[in-house]
């Protein structure tokens, strides 16, 4: 059974979002990491890159496959977790502390279309 953390928001493409003021901290869910298997590489955007919600802005590669990371909200990248470049396995160890990017949101109302923990649990079934 995959871990789901209360208080975070989730996308249907298995990213999680933690809201910190006007900044969205984004990672991939525990379900996503377990489906991918051992992660070998995280392809991240650069700070100042801008994305619209729904754009793919990076990828998580594992031994088995590769999955795109979809921007859950629109905005500008203000930070990337550079530690993942050397230690992609951190996502496997704890998907909810291994954040991938921080996005300065341009439209906070987009958060309304994300799922809360119980709705995400229902999605996973």
């Amino acid at each position, binding site marked *: 059974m995959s871990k789901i953390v209360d208080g975070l928001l989730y996308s249907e493409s298995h990213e999680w979002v933690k809201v910190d003021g006007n900044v969205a901290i984004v990672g991939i869910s525990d379900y996503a990491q377990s489906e991918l298997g*051992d992660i*070998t590489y995280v392809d991240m955007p650069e700070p100042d890159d801008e994305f619209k919600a729904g754009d793919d802005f990076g990828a998580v590669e594992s*031994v*088995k*496959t590769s999955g795109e990371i979809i921007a859950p909200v629109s905005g500008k990248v203000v930070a990337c977790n550079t530690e993942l470049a050397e230690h*992609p*396995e951190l996502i496997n160890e704890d998907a909810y502390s291994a954040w991938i990017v921080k996005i300065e949101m341009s439209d906070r109302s987009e958060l309304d279309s994300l799922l809360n923990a119980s709705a995400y649990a229902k999605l996973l079934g």
Partner: protein
Amino acid sequence: MKYYDKLIFELSRPGRTGFSLPAAEGGMPVGGKLWRGSAPELPEVSEPDVVRHYTNLSQMNFGVDTGFYPLGSCTMKYNPKLNEEIAAMPGFTGQHPLQPKESTEGSRAVFEELDKALAAITGMKRFTFRPCAGAHGELTGLMLMKEYHLGRGDLARTKVIVPDSAHGTNPASAACCGYEIVVVKSKADGLVDVEDLKPLLGPDIAGIMMTNPNTLGLFEKDIKEIAELVHGCGGLLYYDGANMNPLLGVARPGDMGFDILHLNLHKTFSTPHGGGGPGSGPVGVSERVLPYLDIPHVSGFHGNFTVMLRALAYILMLGRENIRMAGRLATLNANYVKESLKDCYRLPIPSVCKHEFVFDGLLEPNGTTTLDVAKRLLDYGFHAPTIYFPLLFHQAIMIEPTETESPETLDAFIEVMRKIAEEARTDPGLLHSAPRTAPVGRPDETRAARQPILKYEA
């Protein structure tokens, strides 16, 4: 399987050699710009050392000459030895690409004959033979697509549509040409969703890339409508020839409306491949793209010529009537295996398949995975099918038996696959600990990817 794990460098002894050369006439040059500072670090071995080393290594290999190789999407059919005889003829092997044109009539006749044969098989107008593999052909094809639009002054087409079931090379080729990728979804029956496609079409679409039958082994029945829609918005249709085998002599991509395609001669036309080559990915075009095709009539550089020779030998050996049987038998074999195993393995799409099909893991996995099934197959002497592709199914097992297998081989494979399903139920440890008979058990793929060791160090 005999275990042998030496590197040729381990056999090296200072001063040992397998040849002797006469002294250079006029003495060796000394110094100069291209003179290397130290001798190359090559292994020093005798002729028997070399022969035994590579013979031992070859005995650890598994190929279509050793056994059944149902690697989905790879068309591992038997490669007739007559192909090899033709390709080894000294009149072909002794040629140099820069020798005078009048002395290469025979080789140019090979190109012309193969061009005509492939055009007849696919319904395309002309081929270029320069691309050396399928992905190379795709890139060439997408560059042709781009040239076609730009040549007409149409600068607005920036997107290429790719189905969610596509081979990964499709979006990669389009992205390499600077296109943005738009994904069209498949329906529950595994075919491209025409209703999902319609709103994606417009003046910004350069074209669509399709594999037909697709990676689930299913024929895209709506291809005529898709072709009309894509052409209607000014786009082109690209055909990924990876799955051409079942269509041989039965249906032609050109008649379906495709404008550009590549063929994998090494797959469909029976030349040895695997382990990286050598491949050949000729690209064919329809009338409307023909003006953009660069056909070198004089240049000696045409890609992998001996692969083309083998392909031509194969086509001529079968002839028009028998080549029809290749595709049909490939389809029959795939359906026979599918129907014989669907009570043990989950079959997500039950319709009649073409040359290959996809299971989504065991019906009763009991804690085992598709990887475990694949590893256990090695213990029984079969090459594993393609696993974890296509990505539509999480436990995908993709099986392509090809037309060259006898009913006895297929039955033996079916029996083993059923036995593995039974083992998963009763003794899953057998699957978890497989393979036991292979010289290497389960390599640490994670560590290999995270900390690759890319060169030999003594």
